[in-house]
């Protein structure tokens, strides 16, 4: 302790909060375009960067056998030129509008995100509409995207966090389930992708009738219905039924997979299984309990692993929906993730299991619950300050087949949840004997100590 130090400032008691200002999660309005596109829109005063999210009903499970990655290549190819613009011209026009356009393919659908200053919304929407309506999908650019993806796979292999995720999905899910395989494909499958495959996937799955568009931002003075009709409304296509999603199942018997990465100065940890998604009434309690376990550096895991032991820069527990369906057959990935210095690998795992067992035996405290609720509910106005964050959550709700007021309802539930409900949910989510542990690190240094922990059979792969 520092004994010679006497602060000379005047101290005051900790201040009491004022009266909270009113805030509610934004409620979107719905509309439909003549061509069948579903529209959700939401006016956010002052948000001069408008966020547009498009959901295309092209799930990864719909990719043809042996062509994993075709959805990802299609997503990237959407911005490689149209019926009137070359790839270079299209990129230039987007930048001239001060816009960004990103697209990625995930298990539920392809998401296309446009951000554009409100003053140039019309130009941005018109470029977006062209990309969806008439993408050129040029052969030479697709060859390049395939080559880039092959390069990218090599870079992913070198990244411990990416490698851990890939290994966990392969462990948890049956090889026949698309969830078990990398979202953007493997070298073997990507090599087989050509323009014909990309075009066929586009023709089969991308159409206005099954597309949803979310528009959020300062829409003052914008005639949005007319603007959307004159842009996205010009896209035509046949009718189709929305895709259905297969139930999610996984093998979560407790075991350890060490992915050998010789010379690693840290071990990447990813400890996971599957559990309830947002359709399950337990979701709010699971969010609350999971936050208490590993949401921040004052949560149970970091309180020990970081703030007491210094094993890590930070470890987080989270729940992330994988594939959801209205019938409740979907699931979320529940996991603990972080990295620890190599020498601390086994001690950090031992502490993690002790924390989980103590949590199951003793439960959460009311103080923990209160602080977590105050954070999760109180931080919402900050979390949803930007148009992009609101649009992202509204699009997630559509993607997961949830009501438009779902997130607002979660906040209402969180505020009222008893401590016991949060305990029960997090204990059910992270049972110590049903967790698959993936460690990416130096097997020669860590394997023996991990074997003695009794957290499951240990397999080493390189």
């Amino acid at each position, binding site marked *: 302790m520092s004994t010679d130090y006497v602060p000379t400032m005047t101290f005051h008691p900790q201040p009491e909060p*004022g009266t909270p200002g009113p805030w509610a999660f934004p409620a979107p309005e719905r509309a439909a375009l003549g061509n069948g596109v579903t529209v959700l829109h939401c006016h956010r005063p002052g948000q001069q960067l408008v966020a547009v999210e498009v959901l295309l009903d092209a799930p990864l499970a719909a990719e043809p056998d042996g062509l994993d990655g075709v959805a990802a290549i299609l997503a990237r190819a959407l*911005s490689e030129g149209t019926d009137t613009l070359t790839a270079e011209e299209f990129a230039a026009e987007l*930048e*001239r509008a001060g816009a960004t356009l990103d697209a990625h393919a995930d298990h539920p659908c392809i998401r296309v995100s446009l951000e554009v200053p*409100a003053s140039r919304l019309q130009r941005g929407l018109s470029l977006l509409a062209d990309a969806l309506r008439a993408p050129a999908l040029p052969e030479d650019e697709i060859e390049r995207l395939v080559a880039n993806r092959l390069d990218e796979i090599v870079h992913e292999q070198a990244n411990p966090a990416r490698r851990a995720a890939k290994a966990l999905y392969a462990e948890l899910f049956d090889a026949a389930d698309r969830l078990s395989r990398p979202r953007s494909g493997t070298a073997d499958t990507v090599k087989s992708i050509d323009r014909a495959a990309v075009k066929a996937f586009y023709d089969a799955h991308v159409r206005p009738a099954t597309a949803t568009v979310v528009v959020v931002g300062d829409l003052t003075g914008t005639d949005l219905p007319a603007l959307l009709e004159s842009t996205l409304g010009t896209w035509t296509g046949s009718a189709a039924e929305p895709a259905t999603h297969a139930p999610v199942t996984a093998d979560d018997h407790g075991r350890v997979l060490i992915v050998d990465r010789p010379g690693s*100065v840290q071990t990447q940890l990813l400890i996971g299984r599957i559990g309830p998604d947002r359709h399950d009434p337990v979701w709010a309690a699971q969010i609350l309990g999971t936050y208490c376990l590993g949401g921040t550096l004052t949560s149970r895991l970091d309180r020990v692993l970081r703030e007491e032991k*210094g*094993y890590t820069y930070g470890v987080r527990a989270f729940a992330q929906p994988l594939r959801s369906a209205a019938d409740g057959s979907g699931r979320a990935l529940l996991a603990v993730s972080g990295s620890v210095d190599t020498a601390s690998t086994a001690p950090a795992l031992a502490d993690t299991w002790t924390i989980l067992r103590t949590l199951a035996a003793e439960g959460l405290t009311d103080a923990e619950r209160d602080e977590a609720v105050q954070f999760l509910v109180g931080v919402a106005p900050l979390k949803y300050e930007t148009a992009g964050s609101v649009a992202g959550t509204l699009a997630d709700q559509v993607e997961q087949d949830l009501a438009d007021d779902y997130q607002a309802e979660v906040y209402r539930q969180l505020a009222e949840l008893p401590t016991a409900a949060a305990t029960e949910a997090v204990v059910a989510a992270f049972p110590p004997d049903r967790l698959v542990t993936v460690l990416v690190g130096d097997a020669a240094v860590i394997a023996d100590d991990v074997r003695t922990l009794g957290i499951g059979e240990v397999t080493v792969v390189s």
Partner: protein
Amino acid sequence: MANPAPASASTGGNGAAIAITEHRLANGLRVVLSEDHLTPVAAVCLWYDVGSRHEVKGRTGLAHLFEHLMFQGSASVSNNGHFELVQGAGGSLNGTTSFERTNYFETMPAHQLELALWLEADRMGSLLAALDETSMENQRDVVKNERRQRYDNVPYGTAFEKLTALSFPDGHPYHHTPIGSMADLDAATLDDARAFFRTYYAPNNAVLSVVGDIDPEQTIAWVEKYFGSIPAHDGKQPPRSGELPDTIGRELREHVHEDVPSRALMAAYRLPHDGTRDADAADLALTILGSGESSRLYNRLVRRDRTAVAAGFGLLRLAGAPSLGWLDVKTSGDATIEQIDAAVDEELARFAAEGPTPEELERAQAQIEREWLDRLTTVAGRADELCRFAVLFGDPKLLNDALPKVLDITAEEVQAVAKARLHPDNRAVLVYEPTAADDADATAATDEEGAAA
């Protein structure tokens, strides 16, 4: 990072200038306020005018390690109480350390603003009452793991450190990066931390900004109440000069053989200081050459030659030393560094000879305008920029001129800066060659295991 501010008419709606008021307490603390009642949130941001450039030999990383210690409690706040209280009030918070400054920020629901001010004042005035060996040892380990996670255990992770060291000569205050070396992190003592606090953590060495749904009179009254009695002190020496000649005069090149997934060419060009018109011109030049998928280097290397999987330019703005233009090219397939070098040099020479087209300049200005909008769209972004202009350039109101200045730059100015600065004799280059898998394992294990032990 590029610049902020929706000032042009074309951004529409709220493109008006940001309302800014300034105050100064008797102890020297500068306070900047900006009201905005659209959302019931308020951002508090505190910039201390101290960064890794103030560190001395043998104590690299101390400013950043110290930033961690600022979250370990003070006279009225328990260890980790800062996090508990802010998050328990529905706020979010963090701190970051760069070459030139250390910042701390809380974004709060507006009715919890007073708590954030109380917390910041408590640690500014009384950190040493709580700082002890336990915190020091613990956070030393945390920071070492931060270093491993972000730099040592990822491919190309130490490129920033290596290229910075190559760009600024030994002994220059910017020669080392804020994360510091493992050896220096190990060597730092509690007395170093105490001395650091006494030297740099004074109200007269800080700027506080508060932005959002606030009552300015009430806010100033709270600031006066909580910060007003913290004594000023003048222990701080000015940082060693970061001045260097405008150009390096030759190419500096280093080859690295490591277990990386592909060859890479990275380079840092010496550019004008942040805050100057020439720095804005350089920003536009780098944007045209290497930002986004319509840039010259992307079109050349990724689209046409197909020798690169990624190619881009970014600007590291520095006020107390020359800024750096960062080139980062990762090769594709079997492409060689010679091919990349030749193509980059050809594109730079062409750009210097011809300058930008009007379309390129328009696109670059639109991109920078969007980045500003993005930066200023949150109260936290605005609070941070106000502190930046106040600390680095003396006047927070400069924020409102920043974007108009960029939009005013001409093609001739962009060409002139490219001609003067973006050429081989004004760069440090780092070349990565992947080692065969088995060698690499051996090397990496030797180097890095030592540090981990």
